[in-house]
């Protein structure tokens, strides 16, 4: 140790100006370890608070939460230990440790202001233990609802996106289509799709068809607008070169216009996805007798707010998963942009 310190101090005469930010000695080596230990400390604190601080909200306290925290603590200890051995896990843990620690700290704060000190009124603000209990108690119904929601979402989104791609391409490609379709689009597009709910319920035979059409309508508008403007703005030189290479009109549309416009089209697909989530949940709350939106309004009727939170948690998981999937598809399709734009 002494020789190492000596080496470093002699080395620093020459090398210090190159890395002035790295603190020398034991503090520099200890810092990464401390960062990796942060989630372990946070998990231990959360568990400590849960076990040691007396409960104010004594109604239906759930023991599963303490068990979950024990598992989380054990996992964090395990990760931390593994990161000391494995070379690849170390940097990953160092990157994500502060975030995990902050998440656990938030959980602890939540636990404190609800279950422990009773600062917020029940049943509207249950503690984390009750939300976990709702999730484990009602998971069958929640997952059935999630399945119905996803079925509706996928059906509506695919139809809406396809319709938007078709009308958008026609509008961007042909002046005549633009002339006739754009007033329709300008008139209907800005109406929030949810405003159609009363009509849709009458027009379509089943509430599933009605909601799927509304989701489709909500997706159709942004996809049409972005596809249309994306295709209309493709460089004319691309088409000229393609025509001298022997491309016919179909080839120009499918192999030049659409691929060239895809970065813009993707923005429309993304905006449409956000709109579809909104319409989906609202339509289920009002008309459809299944799905996550229905579940929320159903449990709200029973004042089971812990289940509302549980459902919100599941919605967040599913929808961010769907968005993640769309971005994965984009990364695949737009691989040619890598290095061209900030990724």
């Amino acid at each position, binding site marked *: 140790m002494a020789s190492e310190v000596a080496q470093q101090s002699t080395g620093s005469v020459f090398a210090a100006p190159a890395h002035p930010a790295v603190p020398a000695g034991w503090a520099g080596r200890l810092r990464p370890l401390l960062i990796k230990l942060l989630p372990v400390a946070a998990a231990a604190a959360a568990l400590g608070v849960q076990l040691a601080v007396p409960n104010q909200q004594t109604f239906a306290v759930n023991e599963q939460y303490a068990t979950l925290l024990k598992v989380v603590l054990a996992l964090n200890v395990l990760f931390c230990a593994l990161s000391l051995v494995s070379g690849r896990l170390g940097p990953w843990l160092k990157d994500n440790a502060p975030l995990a620690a902050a998440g656990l700290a938030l959980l602890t704060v939540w636990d404190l202001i609800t279950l422990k000190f009773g600062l917020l009124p029940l049943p509207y603000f249950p503690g984390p233990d009750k939300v976990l209990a709702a999730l484990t108690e009602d998971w069958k119904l929640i997952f059935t609802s999630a399945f119905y929601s996803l079925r509706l979402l996928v059906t509506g989104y695919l139809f809406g996106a396809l319709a938007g791609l078709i009308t958008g391409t026609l509008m961007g490609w042909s002046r005549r289509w633009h002339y006739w379709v754009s007033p329709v689009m300008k008139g209907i597009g800005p109406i929030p799709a949810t405003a159609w709910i009363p009509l849709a319920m009458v027009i379509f035979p089943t509430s599933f068809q009605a909601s799927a059409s509304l989701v489709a309508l909500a997706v159709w508008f942004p996809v049409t607008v972005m596809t249309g403007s994306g295709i209309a703005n493709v*460089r004319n*030189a*691309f088409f*000229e*070169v*393609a*025509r*001298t*290479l*022997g*491309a*016919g009109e179909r*080839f120009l549309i499918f*192999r*030049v216009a659409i*691929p*060239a416009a*895809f970065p813009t089209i993707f923005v429309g697909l993304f905006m449409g996805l956000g709109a579809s989530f909104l319409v989906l949940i609202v339509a289920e709350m009002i008309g459809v007798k299944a799905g996550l939106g229905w579940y929320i309004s159903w449990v709200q009727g029973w004042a089971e707010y812990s289940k509302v939170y549980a459902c919100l948690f599941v919605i967040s998981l599913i929808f961010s998963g769907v968005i993640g999937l769309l971005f994965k598809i984009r990364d695949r399709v*737009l691989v*040619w942009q*890598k*290095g*061209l734009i900030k990724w």
Partner: protein
Amino acid sequence: MVTAVGNTLKVAPEQSGAISVNGVRRIFLNTQGEETVALDRVNLEIQPGELVSLLGPSGCGKSTLLRIIAGLDRPDEGTICLDDTPITGPHHERGLVFQDPTLFSWLTVRGNVAFGLKARGILKEKGDEVDEFIRLVGLEKFGNAYPHQLSGGMAQRVALARALVNHPKVLLLDEPLGALDAFTRMQMQDEILRIWEDRGTTMIFVTHDVDEAIYMSDRIIVMTPRPGKIQEVIEVRLARPRARNHPDFFMLRSKILEILHFAGEITENYYL
């Protein structure tokens, strides 16, 4: 930097075509409705396998004439024929390379070169030629690269290969080297000449660089603006490969500059 010298194709040389331009007139209207005569009764015969330059200052109609030959623009009067067949629109028999390579940014080098074959539905039969033409322009190591990963010279080579894969009877080049630096430019001039000698394709080469025109062409069509018309046709009777520093090269250069009124004036007591 890629240097590809001496790559030749296994594919047979081209069936090169003749172009005849008869009394072509093209008028553009500006926003105030005033007429600008871009081309005024242009007549031109280009022999099969010939390399001809259209040379002149901007606004002389050289690019307009090339676009009309490519079929991307229509003349208001007159006709253009390829081997006695009137030209009515773009066709893969007449390949085109712009100053901007205009590579399809979503396709790899191989995808760009294969584009013409795919568009014509003959990629299956002729797919082997894609790699042949990529090799011809010396980019065999870059087949899977995307356009933004290429330098300007490399991108222009891809554009050349993309046009050549269709076996055009005529290759139209619209200031293809205008955006390159002086040295890459001279290198690419040799590259195009090598391909021309290997393939025997008729080439029409638009440029505003006098040296480039003399170095490359069999004939130089000197054009002047307002109205755009052919001022003079100059045959370049210099042996190939040409030397940019030969006295006859300079003679020709000063002759062309005089035609274009850019030579300047030699005063008494010229040396200071």
